[in-house]
């Protein structure tokens, strides 16, 4: 019932978008006779056609971008969870580290890339590291929020039944924080994809971001530009739904923090 409503509103938005896009494309090419119309706003059919012509390249390059993003996401999540648990273990450490953690997020990825490259001396590792870095923060912060939101009465309950410290983590704190972790991942996953695309453009010679930049500057196959843009956007959306899907499998319905 709720999902069907969501689907309806989603399709309405999609149809509206397509209509407006097509109208704009029509105005540009057929009414204004703009010679660059094909580049600015090509008709959707043209995009579809060029996607079909280039789909192998685009999907291959997307897969490369995606695998860097995914590796980064995994590493960033692992580090984020470990940091959150460490900070939870020591309040003094939390007070000392948290401000720097916040400050670290002020460094833009563009500035970060040369530092990372200097650090790793390896472009692949650098790309993974950039993705890990951007996902690390939302995951870690949300996880910490979850760990700190455990009600005192549940803590007392575990202690009174003789739970050891690691048992309190294993059976109370971590399961309690999982929904928080997932809301962090819902932010992180699309961010990891964006970071990966950006990392493609910086220095690499492959990845969907590279295809976009390459074709944008007029090199390569011009027809690849718009399909690549659309596929990258879809990757971001897809990653969000993938996290939702995994959450639905892993967590019993009762404890999911429902959006809206």
């Amino acid at each position, binding site marked *: 019932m709720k999902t069907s409503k969501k689907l309806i509103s989603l399709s309405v938005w999609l149809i509206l978008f397509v209509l407006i896009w097509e109208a704009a494309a029509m105005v540009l090419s057929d009414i204004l006779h703009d010679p660059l119309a094909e580049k600015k706003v090509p008709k959707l059919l043209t995009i579809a056609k060029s996607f079909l012509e280039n789909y192998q390249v685009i999907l291959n390059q997307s897969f490369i971008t995606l695998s860097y993003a995914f590796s980064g996401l995994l590493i960033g999540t692992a580090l984020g969870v470990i940091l959150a648990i460490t900070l939870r273990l020591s309040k003094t450490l939390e007070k000392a580290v948290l401000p720097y953690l916040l400050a670290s997020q002020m460094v833009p990825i563009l500035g970060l890339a040369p530092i990372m490259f200097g650090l790793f001396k390896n472009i692949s590792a650098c790309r993974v590291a950039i993705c890990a870095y951007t996902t690390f923060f939302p995951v870690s912060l949300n996880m910490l929020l979850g760990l700190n939101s455990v009600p005192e009465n*549940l803590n007392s309950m575990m*202690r*009174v*039944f*003789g*739970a050891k410290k690691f*048992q309190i983590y294993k*059976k109370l704190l971590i399961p*309690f924080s999982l929904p928080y972790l997932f809301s962090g991942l819902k932010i992180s996953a699309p961010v990891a994809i964006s970071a990966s695309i950006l990392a493609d453009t910086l220095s690499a010679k492959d990845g969907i971001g590279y295809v976009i930049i390459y074709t944008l500057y007029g090199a390569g196959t011009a027809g690849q530009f718009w399909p690549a843009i659309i596929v990258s956007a879809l990757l971001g959306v897809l990653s969000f739904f993938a996290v939702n899907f995994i959450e639905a499998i892993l967590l019993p319905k*009762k404890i999911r923090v429902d959006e809206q």
Partner: protein
Amino acid sequence: MKKLSGYAIKIDNITKVFYDAKGKGRVVLDNVSLNINAGDFVSLLGPSGCGKTTLLRIIAGLEEKTSGGISVFGMSPRDARVKNTYGFVFQDPSLLEWRTVLENVCLPLELKKVPKKKRIEIAREKLSLVDLSAYEKNYPSELSGGMKQRVGIARALVTEPEILLMDEPFSALDEFTKERLYNDILRIWQKTNKTIVFVTHNINEAVKLSNKVCVMTTNSAKIAKVAEIDIPYPRKRNVDFINKVSEIKEIFEGYFYENI
């Protein structure tokens, strides 16, 4: 019926002061002394806010006393807690939302590393005692307040603790369920010779169940009187019963008039 094995809980001049954010102290327990024999069924009776939960938490080693001495079977409350001496029924049920009823009841056994088959067997037995066998696969959010409370009671019983601490376990229950659980708890007590400390603000309940009633009053933060109740079980609402109830009422009223 009573074991003569000395004190189970020995409380010596305990004081508890809570400090607020401004450092202003508030005396919740003022020089409270109380000896509880092994096998006693003691009620802590008093109006809301008089410090019943606080005293119970100090006994359980969940809260530190400000001054005074306390020992449980010769140990500190902390040590007693780690040795699984306590079963605790919380004022709010304190169930884990992501676990089913059965898994919640199994938790204390899980913490003690009892094998899975065995713990399910014991948990089922206690669930049938509180009449919730049909709900073992449900999640707490699917239960009524009284049902959750009964899950909490079953959970407190699974480890066969020597001391059962109960914080207003029946206050959320209807009269019918209450009557039945009164009988069950008395049966368990008489059969196993557990020591029970039972918090309530219901005079009838205290007189019906316990062999000692500690009357606590709001303004003094002290135990006003420990009334022995030697009416034989099962207790009916006879003359002795009603006399006892009015005797205890008079203690409250005495304090009430003294403080005017």
